[in-house]
């Protein structure tokens, strides 16, 4: 197989290709159209593109082939789609680009978008968002459903896309760049609580897979593995990937939120001092 075969999709999905091209085009066009002072810096652009590229790679290149025929690589794929990729994209703070495109929307679209906004608001209720985030992992790892998803092409794509979209929703809720002091977004304390809450169920699932004596996900036995590997090893690695990295991601996200909280406090303290000083002068 030539090198470029590794870059081509294993299972070509026109919809996936279109979605990624549209997002990339809109991002770059927005970037270009923004005035220099609003434009995200090089590091932020790089972070966004890296997240996008990671998601595309695991979904629509040869990587997808290995994800379909190796359990632990499948777990790696979902780690990128549900955790790492969306986290990077959100962390890059694409808000200016999003605002730019929101300004381009014609007014008549508002009533059409209203139901979308409602669904979005419901999904972004903290408890629903956290339940959905963990629930989706559990759902697709239900042995019966997992088997079906690996056999059915449409279900497989629904699985991967649901992970990516939910990842974007959850990490946006957690790492929303707007400050809760000035805008109606989730408070820092609640963000940290959610990040802590999602750790135990994910770890429990990972540990259960890791320490299972029997084969929980035998679809990889039935359909053949990408290369000969002991089924126990495959399942064990998959368990570790379900357990450890998500917990670490929560840890990193908590540090980021604490950092923002402290920066906000410093800023508001400075503002307070400035106000006090003004009062003294007056």
């Amino acid at each position, binding site marked *: 197989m030539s090198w470029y075969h590794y870059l081509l999709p294993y299972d070509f999905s026109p919809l996936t290709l279109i979605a990624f091209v549209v997002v990339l085009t809109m991002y770059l066009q927005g970037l270009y159209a923004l005035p220099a002072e609003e434009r995200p810096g090089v590091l932020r652009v790089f972070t966004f593109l890296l997240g996008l590229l990671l998601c595309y790679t695991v979904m629509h290149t040869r990587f997808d082939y290995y994800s379909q025929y190796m359990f632990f690589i499948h777990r790696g794929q979902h780690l990128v789609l549900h955790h790492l990729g969306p986290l990077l994209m959100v962390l890059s703070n694409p808000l200016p680009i999003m605002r730019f495109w929101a300004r381009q929307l014609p007014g008549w679209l508002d009533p059409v978008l209203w139901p979308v906004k409602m669904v979005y608001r419901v999904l972004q209720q903290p408890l629903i968002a956290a339940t959905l985030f963990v629930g989706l992992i559990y759902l697709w790892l*239900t042995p019966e459903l997992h088997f079906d998803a690996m056999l059915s092409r449409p279900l497989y794509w629904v699985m991967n896309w649901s992970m990516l979209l939910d990842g974007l929703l959850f990490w946006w809720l957690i790492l929303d760049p707007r400050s809760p002091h000035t805008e109606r977004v989730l408070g820092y304390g609640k963000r940290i609580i959610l990040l802590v809450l999602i750790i135990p169920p994910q770890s429990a699932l990972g540990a259960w897979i890791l320490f299972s004596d029997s084969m929980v996900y035998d679809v990889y036995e039935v359909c053949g593995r990408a290369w000969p590997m002991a089924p126990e090893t495959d399942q064990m690695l998959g368990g570790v990937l379900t357990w450890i990295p998500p917990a670490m991601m929560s840890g990193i996200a908590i540090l980021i939120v604490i950092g923002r909280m402290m920066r906000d406090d410093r800023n508001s303290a400075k503002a307070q001092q400035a106000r006090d000083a003004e009062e003294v002068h007056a």
Partner: protein
Amino acid sequence: MSRTIRTLSVVLGLLLVLAGCSGSDTNWNAKNIRGLMPELEFQLTATDGEPFTPEDRAGQVRLLFFGFTNCPDICPATMARLQNAVKQMPEAMRDEVTLLFVSVDPERDTPERIGEYVDFFGDNIVGLTSDEATLRELAKRYRTTFGYGKPDEDGNYDVSHSSAVYVFDGQARARLLIRSDQSISQISEDLETLVRQGRD
């Protein structure tokens, strides 16, 4: 808060419905794959060197199985199991079942060689193969894969492939996935039900 709980229960309810959708009225021993996989469709080369499509055995229950003739254990065991399962069926039904053995090792398995191999197991087996690209497409269609091990000094190599048997009904719809842990009588029972359903 009560709104949150209500919405939450709706979401959970939807998830449960989604998870429970795979149920069906018939209790199969094998895994029910109805609606999960596409219809049986291919064009391969039969053991007489002529092209073969599923329509050549239209109306029959067809069992699709990937393997290779040098296969040391899984393939002969599966073939024997399937043959025994067919033999356990009522005599009048046996002719309505065809086994499709697809060799994924075209390098070594010529149509003649596959012919000798399948004839050894019985006469309701069709041996098939093609070039690797066509075989890869077929494997992909049924969400499976195969691979070749490194050849030893005599040039012998292992071939990894699916251990599953895909069962299609008389109308070429995907129906069942037989796993290697199913007993002969369980397989026989399922095949009988399928043939009977086709007659209704």
